[in-house]
């Protein structure tokens, strides 16, 4: 369980649970967490900076051998010295581009598929595309929970999916969307 968990809400889907928390997604103990990556897979600032500092140079070194990725694609790397085991770098839509919902859906599906391939049982997502990339928290919540729910209703090795947000507006958006699931 995340050490700094402040508030949470959960959703049971078959044998899996979806948990909403407010925390730093790069600093929790999970099998893997998702980083909303750039096309060139440069870690950059924000969570990318946290990964580079806490995880060490090996993460970027590994990424330098992959990419560039197109929108919707994802790739896995080791997580260096981070608490997580793996990082799934997923390139989602950004900044008011066309068909945000469709592209986000594809990104989510590819990410979950990759998590299954790697045998991940505890997976953490940020609020995909919300915040810096400008996707409205309500849109992010709707698409993410739709995809996660339908995925967990099928065959899966995921026992827990954590949605790890960083502010109240995001938390409120996901909480209210979860209430309607």
């Amino acid at each position, binding site marked *: 369980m995340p050490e700094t968990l402040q508030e949470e809400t959960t959703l049971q889907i078959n044998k899996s649970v979806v948990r909403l928390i407010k925390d730093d997604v790069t600093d929790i103990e999970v099998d893997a967490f998702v980083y909303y990556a750039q096309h060139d897979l440069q870690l950059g600032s924000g*969570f*990318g*900076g946290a990964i580079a500092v806490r995880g060490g140079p090996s993460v970027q070194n590994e990424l330098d051998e992959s990419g560039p990725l197109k929108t919707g694609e994802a790739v896995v790397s080791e997580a260096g010295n981070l608490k997580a085991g793996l990082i799934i770098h997923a390139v989602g839509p950004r*900044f*008011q*581009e066309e068909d945000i919902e469709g592209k986000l859906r594809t990104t989510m599906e590819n990410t979950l598929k990759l998590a299954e391939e790697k045998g991940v049982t505890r997976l953490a997502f940020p609020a995909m595309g919300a915040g*810096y990339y*400008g996707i409205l928290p309500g849109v992010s919540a709707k698409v993410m929970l739709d995809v996660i729910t339908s995925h967990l209703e099928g065959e899966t090795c995921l026992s827990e999916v954590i949605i790890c947000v*960083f502010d109240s507006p995001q938390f409120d958006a996901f909480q209210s969307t979860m209430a309607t699931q």
Partner: protein
Amino acid sequence: MSQKKERSQKAEKVIERMGQKLNRQIVGSLTACVHCGMCTESCHYVLANPGDPTYAPAYKADKIRKLFKRHYDWTGRVIPWWVKADSVWTEEDLEELKDTVFGKCTNCRRCTLNCPMGVDYATFNRMARGLLVSVGVQPEGVAVVSKDQWELGNQMGVLKEDYLDTLEWMEEELQDELEDPSVAIPVDKSDCTVMYAINPREVKYDPRSIADAAKIFHAAGESWTMPSEGWDQTNFGLFSGDDALGGSVARRLYEKVIELNASRLVISECGHGYRSTRCEGPNWAAFDIPFEMESSVLTMLRYIREGRIKVDKSRNTQLVTFHDSCNNARSCGLFEEPRELLNLVCENFQEMYPNRAENYCCTGGGGAMSMSEYTPNRLKSGVVKADQLKETGAEVVVTSCHNCVDGLSDVIRHYELGIEVTQLVNLVANALVIEEKIVVPVEEVVPVEEVVPVEEVVPVEEVVPVEEVVPVEEVPVEVAVEEVPVEVAGGEVPEVVSADAMSLAGRVIVVADDEPDQVEFLATVLEDHGATIYRAATGDEALELARREKPDLLTLDLHMPGRDVGEVFEMLREDPELEELKVCVITGRPELRKLIYDRSVRPPEGYLDKPVDEERLLLNVRKILELAD
């Protein structure tokens, strides 16, 4: 005119979203301009570029105004040629607009103040910035800072553990300085009167200002705390025009005050932090504020007025002048309080002209220094500030804003003015007269029987315990002050902290700098404290020495001949044999920080602006090497 032109998705979104941003204030400003030219003379960019009309506020405003006219105003539909209505079509159009709204204006609002029609150009310039940011058209530096603040909660990407570690470090420094182990920098303490929020620059580049504030709170006997999260009072949303970021950042602060049940939020000295937290944030966050908010300038002034702290102005004897931050002064009316405080803690204050609401921008613009591509223009416009500063004859310029500290330092360095920059918190802390306290070390108390007969002495456990600090009036009556050896702390508290006590024996340090004087200074100070020093004058030499000598620390100048220092830094970081190497950037060119901090490798462990004094150098080296242990 442009019937069949294809408009890009981003341009389409900019126009569409403009309609959502228009309010009475913005529409009023977009329609009221009569192009009288009054704004022209008030803009420091124009004054520094007299032959270039593209810097005139009215000209810059027209770049935005034409969109409004074309898409949202009836005049643009009826007589577009008359009102110069026009649109944006391509990404190149947006890039051009970006260079105007980010690169040719600091949003200082001096033109607003001087407009007879009340046109608030800075407000709709900020709107335009926000529209561009929303479609991802923004300077690289703006993108980096925005992402850091969105995702990590502060503008400089400071990680929580580093923030908390810095607070602990400053607490220890303060305890050493005051010889008082009870001095604390409390974190997440509930039910305090004050929650103190700071600028991340204080953690990263100026931790001494945190210690100075803590010293003042301690001396005032304040019930205070710092938050573990929601501690960044700055808000890049004010600069970038991103209202959603503005709301998110402000909300994190407000929610933390409520969670800790503090009754007052005190904002450390920062112009855009004060404006965004106290004035704009409640609107961005749609938040009803159930607590008080004030600048630390008012807090310090109140402490003196109420007699909660005592200051001795004879400790600050240099000739000082004051620079009004645009956000503090022009936008928030904080004019007289800093001057009153300054006169209480300094002997020689010389006013700068013009001042208060008419003062000129430092060029920092509450975030402009993040955009290195505009640095030459920014520094050119700084000639106005440089002339103002020179005219005062001051040795020190004081300001209540961290952005202004960086902006002024940059201008002073560029124009070789040799003026020191500081803040009120530093001057107040320096002038502080700490209440006398008595320390009664046990080893000096025993043997008790030598002082007074045993039967007259209270049991040993009632005598002051080891190193406990006790106010004079609380010393047990049985211990006669004149009979017990006592050590009086305070009064003449040395300004220099205990860095001198540090030994660097056994440490290997590479000093890399192309200025021989600077190398000699750094090397001498570090050698005097026991370190073994190797000197490098280029990036390649630094690289070679680092690989050969495997030093504990490398001090790195950012501007040296030969190989790009950013590249050198990245090579050092990527060398598996140098994983333990600590790096401290020491630079006179803060705009070059981008060379290092934008790289996706572990950032340097330390950073110092030149000129560096011995105390700061040793404090930082000590901090870095303690981390290494």
